[in-house]
């Protein structure tokens, strides 16, 4: 039974963890205080022969104290929480110059889409990864999160980031990883029969490695498009299997039409 959180690897992770530990200390103190008092009262005031309870109806002073003190504590907690929440979730204050990807959830997989050579999404030179997202370390990543069918939930515990992916909406979320490695992407919202199999990987790579990987992907996609142009058919199947990331988990996926962006 562990009340400690596993270390976080995002820039805002420690802010969340700090508030968590503050709440843990406060609620821990309240927990032990009240429970011990409860046990003490049960023992101290247990029935004994000839004993009578004191006829007490209450105390206005006590009521005022135990209304005011918890009120102040929880409001302070709320005020501490608000800026952290705002920093993480409010798109108006998201970091500038983020690296952007699109992430689309569907039963029961995640598709990451990169803008490709033109830097624009939903164009022919986009390339995609299935159940994997490669991102550079130490750079804010902006994800446009969408879903094609039901509600799923993007959850990377190590980043302390969770956001539902809602069909019909594109929800912006961001994080900046501070440590390279592969982190589990889970689905946190019941989404059907395969819900518990809907995992993926966020691979946080050193900047240079990421850029090299991205360059190969862009080039591979361009090559495919070049070949396809010759036959005047930029259909969905053209990209099929043509792009491979060369990474174990990251099989490339066919292009996919997104009607609702």
């Amino acid at each position, binding site marked *: 039974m562990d009340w400690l959180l596993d270390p976080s690897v995002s820039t805002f992770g420690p*802010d969340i963890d700090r508030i968590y530990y503050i709440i843990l200390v406060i609620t821990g103190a309240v927990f032990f205080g009240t429970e011990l008092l409860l046990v003490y*009262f049960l023992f101290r005031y247990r029935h004994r022969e000839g004993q009578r309870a004191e006829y007490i109806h209450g105390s206005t002073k*006590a009521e005022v104290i135990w209304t005011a003190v918890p009120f102040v504590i929880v409001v302070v907690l709320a005020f501490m929480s608000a800026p952290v929440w705002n920093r993480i979730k409010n798109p108006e204050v998201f970091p500038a110059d983020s690296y952007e990807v699109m992430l689309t959830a569907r039963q029961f997989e995640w598709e990451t889409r990169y803008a490709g050579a033109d830097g624009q999404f939903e164009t022919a030179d986009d390339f995609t990864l299935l159940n994997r997202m490669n991102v550079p370390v130490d750079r804010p990543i902006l994800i446009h999160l969408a879903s094609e069918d039901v509600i799923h939930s993007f959850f990377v515990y190590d980043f302390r980031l969770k956001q539902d992916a809602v069909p019909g909406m594109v929800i912006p979320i961001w994080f900046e990883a501070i440590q390279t490695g592969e982190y589990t992407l889970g689905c946190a919202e019941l989404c059907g029969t395969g819900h518990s199999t809907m995992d993926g990987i966020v691979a946080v790579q050193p900047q240079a490695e990421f850029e090299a990987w991205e360059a190969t992907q862009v080039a591979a996609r361009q090559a495919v498009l070049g070949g396809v142009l010759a036959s005047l058919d930029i259909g969905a199947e053209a990209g099929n299997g043509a792009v491979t990331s060369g990474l174990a988990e990251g099989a490339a996926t066919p292009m996919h039409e997104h009607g609702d962006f």
Partner: protein
Amino acid sequence: MSHVATKTDYDLLPFAGEHHEELSFVRKYIFSTDHKTIGKQFLFMSLLFLLLGGTLATVMRWQLGFPGTPLPVDILPETMAPGGIILPEFYNSLVTMHGTFMIFFAIMPLLVGVFGNLLIPLQIGAADMAFPKLNMFSFWLAVPAGFIMLASFFVEGGAAGAGWTSYAPLSTSGEFTGVYLGQQLWLISLFLLGFSSITGAVNYITTIINLRAPGLTWFRLPLTVWALFITAILVLLAMPILAGGLIMLLTDQTLGTTFFKPELGGEPLLWQHLFWYFGHPEVYILILPAMGIVSEVIANGARKPVFGYHSMVFAIAAIALLSWIVWGHHMFMSGMNPRLGMTFMFTTIVIAVPSAIKVFNWLGTLWKGNIHFTTPFLHSVAFVALFIIGGLSGVFMASTPVDIPIHDTYFIVAHIHYVLFGGSLFAIFSGITYWYPKLFGTLMNETWGKIHFIGTFIAYNLAFFPMHGIGLQGMMRRLYDPTLYAYLQPLQPWNVFISYSVFVLFAFQFIFAANFLLSIWKGKKAGPNPWRANSIEWSAPSPPPHGNFERMPVVYRGPYEYSVPGAREDFILQTDPPDSSVAPHHTSASTSH
């Protein structure tokens, strides 16, 4: 027959001393209008559903503790568990139906249907509810609701599998879940149940406002009645909202409307807003009556007036009011505007204050008491101890940034169960043992009651406390097989441990079941006031006859006059005339001896 009060309704509801016609078997036991019989009917029905909900939970815990291992008893059909191995779609039905049965068919009818029916007329000194026939109707609507919900297991595609919250669009179309008719039966069943609750609520509110015995002013009402009164108002206002949402979801499924279907212009988050606008008041519907019961029983066990009676009433009212403006805390991660999330954090976290007030007042009630450890008292004290944990975990989730990692994990599952099992269900055990005499005329066995209590208390905590931990390590809720995630595999020993604890917990409930059933015939005769309590029901015989009281009771004081200095006994019935019990040389009018 003399009517002191001016309330005309009294004329329609004869007290026991007045003329009664003999009732046929059917009118007496099946289509009865007697609030106590209806309370008993609700009791048997909801205890059965409690058992069913618990059974579903043990099956789920089998899968979570031992994923992919065949069930020890292979009796489920191919469509649920071929070769004893639970299918993921069946697991989703289990999760959904466990939550649904527990919340709508066990805890809610136990608290509102059973205690509302049993206690309101008895504790306000009325002969029955204001609208006895409507009361009977309310129960007989709940019965088909339950049957429909049960039947949904056996239709093609199985029972609903989108969670007890039925989030759209997962719930809008069978193509996403493979469940078609089951989901529709779920909606129809809850619609009927909601209708049943609304008719009950109208009755409770009317009865409490109009049928209080002479002298029973608002601030002489037992806290149970206060809690049930405010709960009834919540039910009356919240259930229609659920009903509206249910109808929209049903027409989305059957008539081609698109309220929640995004590809056709619908709005999935609309469902969540409707559901939680109902749902948060609902969770307080599931705890306020429990708080009333606990206040009652703790004062009785401690032989002391409830500490801060008025502040207890105001806290209930404050919780009820706040419960309307906090629903968004269930939607922090939903894609709702983050500024709205911030607002809901402030309203939500403030609700911890009236909760804290109640806990401190319960502690204050024990302070300088003269505590008798009866079985109902133990369950009520356990409620306080466990509600503290559930309330404190609520603070973590109310803090929006902290909710980011713990939302939709086992931390939430722990919270839910600390408030609803540790809280509500312990209060229900307390209330059933305490008011058993008013139901059956006998007492439940104290020794077996205590064995059940201790076993339940320990196994319960072993089962649910570690869930906080695995939630904090990132284990999602509603997960069919946690071992599929590499980073959750180290938590598997906890899942095994929790599963064993749940099996033990489940086993202990059979002690309660046996004690409950056998005591109807074998229990010690209770007499009118076995707990030496004050409120009006204890001046009626156990069980009270049809009409409850010989004639209309007259009330002289509040319900918690325990250990009044100079009084002969450490309790004084609300109905004892003022001079009869204070001076030692007078004969006590109490009926306890």
